[in-house]
């Protein structure tokens, strides 16, 4: 009596894979094969009783406003989390600024590791490890040549570090055994900011993968100093936060991250700035006539590659942001491996106002949360 369908289903799968059966006739072919002539029963029964004729089931399924129903349900309580993915877009942290005797600008930061449960998707709570209570951590934004000093406190139950991507001494590297803060300890990182570009920082304690995917990462942006780049001073000034040229731009930080909520080494939720679908449900408003610059960083674990695809437009891309001329021109999709990052520049000046999506072009990530849109307004 165990006429479970599995063997038959396997057969169907194999046949389908090999394109040996066409969808329309598959079922009837099998029926014929099994009973050689088929539905004896059909002659005795009302036709519609056992009829399972193919129908079209692709209409009026949902009146959901968000992308045909392909979305997470509900909203994250940003207040309870203590941070919002939208604020993180523009939340540049210049630190506590002072002048050193040699005239160098000193930027001081206090960063603490805390273990916190955060709502990483509507209704889904994740036991995160955080820099300063948020994921991603504070966006450290300095200028090329600044002195950076980080007072790093570990308030958690595991050892942690901050490993900066930058040019620095081995003594400042923030790896196990070097400036690693044990629980309750405090260490100080102290280095010159270089090279200019879009970088990141993250914990480098072992086990490495877990320390990363639990949430210990953040952006480290080093703006170019125009004085050092006379050949491209204009470009450098437009990058340097706070200059009139820079204020023309609409700048956003987007950290592509993901969460493995059931710890099976596969991500359940993908996003930029932690919260899935946030910018799909409430598109990111941009002014049509001002150019857009995106600091894009990939910290996704488990999946080797993430990507950024822009609808209806193309952009210039500066890999690692370490050049003032684009490393890739006029593309609409860029991929980044784990830890890779770069700067995107584009403009909607010639475009009609409206919604322009941007998302990972891995459909898997897109459908699991990394789906967003710009609302371009005139």
């Amino acid at each position, binding site marked *: *009596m165990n*006429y479970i369908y599995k063997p038959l289903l396997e057969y169907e799968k194999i046949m389908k894979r090999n394109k040996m059966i066409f969808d329309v006739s598959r079922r009837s072919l099998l029926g014929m094969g099994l009973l050689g002539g088929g539905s004896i029963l059909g002659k005795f029964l009302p036709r519609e009783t*056992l009829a399972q004729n193919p129908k079209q*089931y692709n209409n009026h*399924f949902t009146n959901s406003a968000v992308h045909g129903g392909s979305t997470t349900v509900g909203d994250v309580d940003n207040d309870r989390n203590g941070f919002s993915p939208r604020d993180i877009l523009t939340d540049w942290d210049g630190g506590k600024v002072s002048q050193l005797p040699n005239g160098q600008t000193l930027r001081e930061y206090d960063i603490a590791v805390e273990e916190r449960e955060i709502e990483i*998707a*509507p*209704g*889904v*709570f994740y036991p995160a490890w955080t820099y300063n209570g948020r994921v991603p951590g504070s966006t450290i934004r300095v200028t090329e040549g600044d002195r950076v000093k980080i007072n790093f406190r570990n308030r958690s139950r595991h050892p942690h570090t901050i490993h900066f991507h930058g040019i620095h001494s081995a003594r400042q590297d923030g790896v196990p055994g070097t400036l690693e803060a044990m629980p309750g300890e405090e260490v100080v990182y102290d280095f010159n900011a270089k090279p200019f570009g879009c970088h990141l920082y993250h914990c480098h304690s072992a086990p490495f993968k877990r320390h990363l995917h639990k949430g210990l990462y953040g952006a480290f942006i080093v703006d170019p100093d125009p004085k050092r780049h006379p050949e491209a001073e204009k470009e450098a000034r437009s990058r340097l936060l706070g200059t009139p040229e820079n204020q023309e731009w609409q700048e956003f930080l987007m950290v592509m991250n993901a969460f493995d909520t059931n710890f099976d080494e596969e991500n359940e939720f993908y996003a930029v700035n932690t919260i899935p679908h946030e910018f799909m449900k409430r598109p990111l408003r941009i002014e049509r006539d001002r150019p857009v610059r995106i600091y894009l960083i990939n910290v996704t674990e488990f999946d080797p590659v993430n990507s950024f695809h822009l609808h209806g437009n193309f952009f210039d891309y500066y890999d690692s942001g370490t050049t003032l001329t684009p490393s890739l021109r006029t593309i609409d999709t860029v991929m980044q491996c784990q830890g890779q990052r770069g700067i995107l520049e584009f403009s909607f000046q010639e475009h009609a106002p409206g919604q322009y999506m941007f998302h990972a072009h891995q459909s898997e990530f897109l459908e699991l949360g990394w789906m967003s849109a710009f609302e371009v307004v005139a």
Partner: protein
Amino acid sequence: MKKTWLWAILPLIALITSIGIFLSIDPLSPLGVSAPPLENLTVERTVLGDRGISLLVRAEGSKPMQIAQVQVDGSYWTFTQKPPGAIPRLSTAWIDLPYPWVENETHHLNLITNTGISFEHTIDVAVATPQFTLSRLWGFTLLGLYVGVVPVGLGMLFYPSLKTLGGQGMKFILALTLGMLAFLLVDTLEEGLELANSAANAFAGSILVWAIAAISFLTILTIGRSRGKAPEGQSLSTYLSFSIGIHNLGEGLAIGTAFAVGKAALGSLLVVGFTLHNLTEGIGITAPLVKSKPTFITFLGLTALAGLPAVLGTWLGVFAFSPHWAAIFMGIGVGAILQVIVEVGSYLARTASKIGGTWLSKISLAGFSAGLIVMYGTALLVNF
């Protein structure tokens, strides 16, 4: 007298008090038990309609469970839950997904709770779930009749030829009946345990099947022998019909479910298979009647008792179906079949001793084996 009363009540009061104390002072707190709650989720029904996919889920968390998000084929999908909110332990809720599912293809669902734990559910072959209409009900009634009533009735047509058999022939037929029953016993037990596995863990389904089987076996045996002797003749046939009836209820359930979840391609084949498969049941039921003079009404009644449950099973399988209830029915079936095995066995022993022999003989071995082989052989048509 007063004191003995007191000793019946005092332990209960002490028990309630100790539970109350345990719950109020929380003696486990020094153990540092702060682990996340245990969660489990069972999908009991899947309904595919022109508005999407609906799942009936039963929560088995140590605390009420909150379904936060649902993926269909690796995509988060909008859904509604009835009733909304956290689902208490052993309660159920409907999850409705307006998802454009694709006819005849496989869909994978993944339900994610507020703690980030995920529970997978696969729809092997997506076909529209039959909705309740009178013509459908009639169709499935006919299906049940073909599977249950027709073959049993046809088997009974052998009755006149059974009457002409001598003692040895009778031994053969009774042993054949035993062989058939042995097959049904294993089959029903397997079916029950399989259903138990798909039921919520908290119901401890397999223990339930065994326990119900033991209780129903002893109950039916006790009822059967309440007049001081083993049932024979018409009453033995009635017990046979009853036990076979419950087994056929299980077959009906399986067929109904097969139709409901998209295995209908097998329908015609199954019906022909079961007609052959269940023919032997009709022969077995009439075997104890050889010595008596049953009326036509008796045959009708026995056929109905053995066959009609297949109709009921088909209805349940198609329109409403919870695996733990079905497992309980299968448990009753196991007990009932075991009871008739005992009674037919003892009848065989008595028949054998009357003609001067023992229950164990070449003839009865041949009959028993024939019963098993026929059932196994015809089952080849219905096993997938």
